[in-house]
């Protein structure tokens, strides 16, 4: 191992002699990270959503004694998302838990009755139920966006009706009239009439006019009661139908923390894979590999040195990046130890993958091209949330991304940055397995490394 530190020093000297390469190593990943930052706030066009409509057929919405035209809820929902129809709540829940669908939208059987109650003296709170699996922040944000958009239109239509009804109550208070409750008709004096009475009694207030004054007092009480009725109605105007969001499984950090984790992982992946693969291929291009492995350094030590170089440079670049981002988004520095653990473990697995790539491709140009061709699509595939694509495609994506260290590195770094992350143990174990596998592959590939 004595030779490793000198090789490390040599590689750093070479890096220092290539300022353009060093700048590219830092600038390109940051550029990609910014692009991904923009991209992750946009979801796919038609996410799959489980849809359960428990509202009895032919139930009509009636606000203020007027029936709304029959709305084809199914068509309205399904033109915005890809609907997966389910028979009951448990089926909806299992589809969300498995990631088969992005979320489940459940319209409960009492939904229409509660909407109808909005124009009565005892308005209820109509709710739709949304089941989500917030396994990652993009998915959580995507579900919120979709459901909000979906309900906005329905809410707007109902809000107009409720607004009209609220206006009727207020008109009753101002102008007076009749109000029916429980089959009984109650006369309402109205503020206008009250004012007139007061004007009449104002010149003189002898005891004979006391009943009239009592009438005014009675109206004041009625007015207060009517306004109490109007208040909850007006409150419901903002959002007549509420969303009851139920998190079925998974927990995710805030989107901005997730975006930082994505940017940091992308940076780490590019720096480490390119540096390790490139510097290993450079040993061959400089014809130095046979000379080095002829007793000066073992092939295993050479691989170790390259991975160490990748981890060290990747760690510095990623920490600098996180420190820069911490200026804009507060990060939990109390978890710094976990950051380090996640970055080092991720760097080691990515370094091993880079070593395997460098040993297999053998030429610096080919290595650079391959590194981009493999790392970029894998990184983007790793960001696809379950339910955003069909189950078969998602399974393919899941198995493919599991073979490369990017996704577990992203999970580990997300967990390191925020306690709401997916848990660091599983990703670290995954990274350890990938490290061993890629290191073994790299060692095998080195057997033919020096051959022409």
């Amino acid at each position, binding site marked *: 191992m004595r030779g490793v530190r000198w090789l490390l020093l*040599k590689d750093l000297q070479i890096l220092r002699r290539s300022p353009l390469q060093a700048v590219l190593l830092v600038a390109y990943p940051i550029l990609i990270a910014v692009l991904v930052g923009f991209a992750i706030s946009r979801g796919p066009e038609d996410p799959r959503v489980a849809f359960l409509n428990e509202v009895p057929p032919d139930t009509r919405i009636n606000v203020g004694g007027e029936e709304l035209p029959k709305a084809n809820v199914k068509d309205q929902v399904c033109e915005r998302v890809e609907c997966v129809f389910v028979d009951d709540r448990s089926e909806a829940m299992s589809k969300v838990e498995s990631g088969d669908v992005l979320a489940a939208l459940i319209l409960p059987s009492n939904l229409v009755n509660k909407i109808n109650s909005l124009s009565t003296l005892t308005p209820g709170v109509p709710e739709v139920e949304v089941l989500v699996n917030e396994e990652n922040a993009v998915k959580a944000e995507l579900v919120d966006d979709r459901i909000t958009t979906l309900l906005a239109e329905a809410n707007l239509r109902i809000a107009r009706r409720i607004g009209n009804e609220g206006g009727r109550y207020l008109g009753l208070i101002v102008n007076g009239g009749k109000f029916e409750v429980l089959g009984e008709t109650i006369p309402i004096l109205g503020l206008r009439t009250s004012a007139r009475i007061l004007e009449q009694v104002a010149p003189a207030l002898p005891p004979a006019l006391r009943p009239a004054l009592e009438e005014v007092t009675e109206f004041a009480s009625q007015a207060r009661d009517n306004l109490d009725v109007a208040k909850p109605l007006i409150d419901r105007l903002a959002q007549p139908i509420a969303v009851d969001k139920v998190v079925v499984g998974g927990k995710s950090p805030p989107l901005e923390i997730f975006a930082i984790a994505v940017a940091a992982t992308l940076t780490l992946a590019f720096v480490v894979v390119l540096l390790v693969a490139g510097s290993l291929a450079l040993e061959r291009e400089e014809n130095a590999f*046979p000379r*080095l492995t002829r007793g000066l350094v073992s092939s295993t030590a050479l691989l170790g040195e390259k991975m160490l170089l990748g981890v060290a440079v990747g760690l510095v670049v990623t920490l600098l990046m996180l420190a820069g981002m911490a200026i804009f988004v507060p990060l939990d520095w109390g978890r710094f130890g976990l950051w380090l653990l996640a970055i080092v473990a991720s760097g080691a697995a990515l370094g091993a993958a880079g070593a395997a790539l460098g040993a297999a491709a053998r030429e610096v140009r080919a290595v650079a091209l391959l590194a981009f061709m493999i790392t970029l699509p894998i990184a983007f595939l790793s960001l696809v949330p379950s339910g955003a694509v069909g189950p078969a495609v998602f399974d393919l994506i899941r198995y493919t991304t599991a073979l490369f260290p990017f996704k577990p590195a992203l999970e580990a770094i997300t967990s390191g940055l925020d306690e709401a992350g997916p848990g660091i143990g599983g990703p670290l174990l995954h990274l350890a397995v990938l490290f061993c596998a890629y290191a073994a592959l790299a060692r095998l590939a080195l057997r033919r490394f020096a051959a022409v």
Partner: protein
Amino acid sequence: MSAVQAQGLVKRYGEREALRGVSLRAGPGELVAVIGPNGAGKTTLLSILAGIAKPDEGEVDSSNGTVGWVPQQAALYRRLTVEENLLLFARLEGHEDPHASTAEMLELTGLGERRGEIVARLSGGNQQRINIAIGLLSRPAVLLLDEPSVGLDPRQRARLWEFVSGLAGRGTTVIFSTHDIQEAERYGGRVLVLADGESLFDGSAEDLREAVRSEAPEAADRDFETAFVAYLQHRGH
């Protein structure tokens, strides 16, 4: 006493036999030229002597000292300076005072004044001198040079051979491969002729001339290179 000895070396690459029972023995301070056409097995022989490749049959004994190896293409870091290259390999060799060893090699190669220059900016000849100097850092009893003069102009070649002859004069056994029959004749104290993996001749340059004259008399009056080609043809290569 021999500095290096190889007996009955056979090397196969798939169906093809690159070496067919080649033997070689070289004493201290001896300069041995290995010549032959392309594909003769010169690089394979040197690689086996260097320990980079393993023979399928036969054995190599170099127990009397280390073997230094200088590959045909300069094996050094072109973005490092002359001094940084020498220092790196001196450290990797485990020298107690790598700076002293580097200074010694800079003196030996005559590149002391260019120690701070990036290797990529040096001429091919100077790069080859550093390449050889790195091979000498292990202070080898035997130095193997694989076509060391390829790509060098006559002046650089003359300097290189002056340097190599000086090493042999100080007791280092030098075994070099070359395409250039005249170079082998001029600098090789002994010449080993290989063709298609087979050893055709092992002896002095004078003995080789004699062998060429006797086996290819029709070309004896012509230049030595032409006569040598005729000799190879007579031997079926």
